[in-house]
């Protein structure tokens, strides 16, 4: 037992004006001794290869002019955050691809396990079997939910997953034409365009049916040709519509030897057919509804899945965890697999440049899925269906309002159209403490100032919905 004798010659320390709580060796004694061992007199000698003319003379002018203690920071942050308005009574009715879902407390407790959140990517599997197993479980659970065979450990979000899926399809097919349904989320359309900037891709958008909100099959048929790499559709699409033409689409796409890329809300799959069941080649989506919360737009969890197909898997971006065994064959274990696709090995020939991803969010989604189980996911999706349909029905009963605006069957989100510009309704709802639907006046592909996209989830009680409807009713 080597004991550090502390009880002799204790001198009151000279009060240091700066203390680095996160730099343990930054006390004067350690610094002095370390510099001596290094063989320099002053730490700045370690920077003697930096051109002196660009060395900063003063510390940079960031922060608040001095070091803050936790308490000072807490008070400062509290005064800032008090300017935010949180809507929980009722929860926001905002749609637009992200909805207010409840997050079980157990998810946060698991994410607070610091072995998880302070870990690096598990490049050394033997010391990180726990994380690797969770990632493998996430991949497996998501695969079973999607009924796809291969799922990676995450992309940034649905939009970059969609962009990467298109890039992968271009590599697999060696074609440059991309067909995209016109009813996908407009921000995802923007992201796809950005990511394809360097690829000379030819993106074609298929108009949707203004009556049903679904993909216009004739137009789609006419847009796809033998140069088409892939077709991308979303189920549900931007308007919340569950397109029941997906089997027909799959047939059309595969007839032209193109790849069928489908974007999904994983929670809808409690009651909606899986993309695997209608022959999707690549599935993307966001697992935000599976226990991730809102976070003002991120972090979320981009889903990326493929069929069991050599080319598709080999061209898959991102990290994959696999089951393996020990060298001596005695036990099972988990490790990163197919790393030769990745940038740290393949460099400019990699399938993607992605390295940091949203892994911790995969821990959350895995925990959420097993907390609910298949039956719980079914029940939850069913309850959301009931609630959103109740809201649409009640809004639709308001005078001269139409809800849902499109006739296609929907899940969770739906569009409603009002007899006066929605903007004014929205402002008035805000005054009453209600965050209404998403105004669609400036949102492609609709651009309709009378419409809004509502989202109703398990977080909304009937009373919440009634409050919304009654408040709008009073304004019409």
């Amino acid at each position: 037992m080597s004991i550090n004798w502390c009880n002799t010659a204790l001198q009151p320390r000279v009060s240091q004006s700066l203390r680095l709580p996160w730099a343990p060796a930054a006390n004067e004694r350690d610094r002095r001794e370390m510099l001596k061992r290094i063989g320099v007199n002053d730490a700045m000698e370690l920077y003697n290869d930096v051109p002196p003319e660009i060395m900063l003379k003063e510390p940079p002018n960031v922060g608040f002019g001095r070091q803050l203690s936790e308490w000072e920071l807490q008070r400062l942050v509290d005064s800032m955050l008090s300017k935010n308005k949180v809507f929980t009574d009722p929860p926001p009715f905002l749609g637009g691809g992200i909805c207010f879902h409840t997050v079980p407390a157990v998810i946060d407790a698991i994410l607070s396990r610091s072995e998880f959140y302070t870990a690096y990517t598990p490049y050394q599997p033997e010391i990180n079997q726990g994380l690797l197993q969770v990632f493998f479980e996430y991949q497996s659970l998501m695969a079973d939910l999607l009924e796809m065979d291969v799922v990676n450990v995450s992309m940034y979000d649905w939009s970059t997953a969609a962009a990467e899926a298109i890039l992968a399809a271009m590599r697999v097919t060696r074609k440059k034409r991309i067909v995209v349904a016109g009813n996908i989320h407009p921000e995802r359309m923007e992201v796809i365009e950005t990511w394809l900037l360097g690829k000379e891709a030819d993106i074609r958008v298929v108009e949707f049916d203004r009556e049903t909100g679904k993909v216009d099959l004739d137009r789609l048929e006419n847009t796809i040709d033998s140069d088409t790499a892939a077709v991308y559709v979303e189920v549900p699409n931007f308007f919340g519509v569950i397109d029941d033409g997906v089997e027909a689409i799959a047939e059309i796409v595969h007839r032209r030897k193109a790849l069928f890329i489908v974007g999904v809300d994983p929670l809808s799959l409690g009651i909606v057919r899986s993309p695997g069941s209608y022959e999707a080649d690549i599935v993307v989506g966001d697992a935000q509804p599976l226990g991730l919360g809102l976070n003002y737009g991120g972090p979320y969890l981009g889903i990326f899945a493929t069929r069991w197909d050599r080319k598709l898997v080999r061209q898959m971006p991102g990290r994959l965890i696999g089951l393996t065994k020990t060298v001596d064959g005695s036990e099972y274990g988990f490790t990163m697999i197919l790393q030769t696709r990745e940038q740290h090995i393949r460099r400019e020939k990699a399938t993607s440049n992605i390295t940091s991803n949203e892994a911790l969010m995969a821990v959350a989604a895995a925990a959420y899925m097993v907390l609910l189980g298949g039956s719980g996911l079914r029940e939850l999706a069913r309850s959301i269906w009931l609630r959103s349909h109740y809201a649409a029905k009640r809004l639709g009963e308001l005078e001269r309002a139409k809800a849902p605006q499109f006739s296609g069957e929907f899940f969770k989100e739906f569009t409603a159209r009002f007899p006066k510009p929605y903007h004014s309704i929205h402002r008035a709802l805000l005054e009453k403490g209600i965050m209404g639907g998403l105004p669609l006046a400036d949102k492609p592909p609709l651009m309709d100032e009378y419409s809004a996209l509502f989202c109703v989830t398990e977080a909304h009680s009937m009373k919440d919905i009634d409050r919304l409807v009654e408040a709008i009713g009073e304004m019409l």
Partner: protein
Amino acid sequence: WSEPLVYELGDPNNSGFVRPYSHEDAELERILDVTPEEMLGHMFRDSIPNIPGLSEVEVVRHFTRLSQMSYGVDVGPVPLGSCTMKYNPKISEEIARDPRIRYLHPYQDPETVQGLLEMLYLLERWLAELTGMDRCSLQTPAGAAGELAGALMIRKYFIDKGEDRDEMLVPDSAHGTNPASAAMAGFKVVRIPTSENGTVDMEALDAALSERTAGIMLTNPNTLGIFEDRILEIADKLHSIGALLYYDGANLNGIMGIVRPGDMGFDIIHLNLHKTFGAPHGGGGPGAGVVCARGELAEYLPRPLIAKKGDRYYWDYECKKCIGRIRMFYGNIIPLVKAFVYIAMLGGRGLRESAIQSVINTNYFIALMRSVDGYELPYDPEKPRKHELVLSAKPLKRETGVTAEDVAKALLDKGLHAPTIYFPLIVEEALMIEFTESEPRRQIEEYAGALREIAGEARRNPTALKQLPRNTSTGRLDNVYANHPRSVTPTFRVLRRRLQGEQLSL
């Protein structure tokens, strides 16, 4: 394995979740008078998903046990080079958990999120100041996304200028993301070799420059931990032919607050807030890879940008030249908030002192290792390193056959995380080590001691050493089996199909 898979524990008919307002569902069905089964028709899923369900206590135990089989900075050092695995302050976790951040919908009207926008605005200003840039986009969720954004900015810049430049220079010591990002943005990658003293080979650089050169992607200090002392000269060369400089911010930690990329001549830079600014890595992510630019290039940044008019904060979507969105919404807000906390608490002086301490730690470790046989410090061993250093285990391998990988596994066996190995590619048997300022002196000494012991063990019994690790939750894993087309198993679904008799090969 010692913890069963969830598929062995749960049953899809079980659930640990109590649904909100479940008592209303029957009434809703009555009022609606239709069911999802009827309305969805052939789009209704005919069986419940094959997701095993567990009770709450079983979920907690499963993940708690798995967490104990994981290793992060809170357990011990993770001195992975170029990963900047510093301590993640608990106060940041606490603040990022505030419902006034977590419960905000991205489409809430701006006047309902002024507090958060103020935070993001300050953060953006600080990052611009720290890098010497004009504006930053917080959108990019990771370093690689920042690089992609930067490369696309360069691409669009030259398209707008009507110049046909399709070559991106990348040193051979660069992070793998640099060439990958350049390629994704449609550039041809031109590799620039490293000179004997560990910096860019200036002659090779001169030879590579041409009217096709769009720019260079550099990290400075580079992955050897060496500062590119001729950086001003490099910048002049590039700029003089109208090309641009991109700064890979992964290695900023050692010079933060001491010298700024903007002052070195860089035009675009990304920062890894989950490395340099104390946000956690999360076992892989989420990160935040803010991208900044100066001058004309700032107009190409991915939108929206955070902005302020009077005392009102808002998202500026104006986009005449910009490359568009790199992802949905505004960025990975949670790590952005943590970076705000980190900078706010340390202040400029604290950041600078942290950088200096990280460099002291690096060079202290080098000093300790000088007396250890078996490892060498390639590329001018007398030059001070900055945030990290790269040792080579070549002497040890020559002497005993023990490789860098074996050394890594032996470290795991001692309960210490291994360094980055076999990177950068220009160093044989590379051990790339970055302690950051977070490691106590005692821990650095312990690490050096462990490497010394391993060298000793390698000489005594190299065979035994090659069978490590043993003290970890699993022994050394079979990479061939893991990746073999007939045994590769990325999901339980594939395993199940194989067990059911299917021949699945990739």
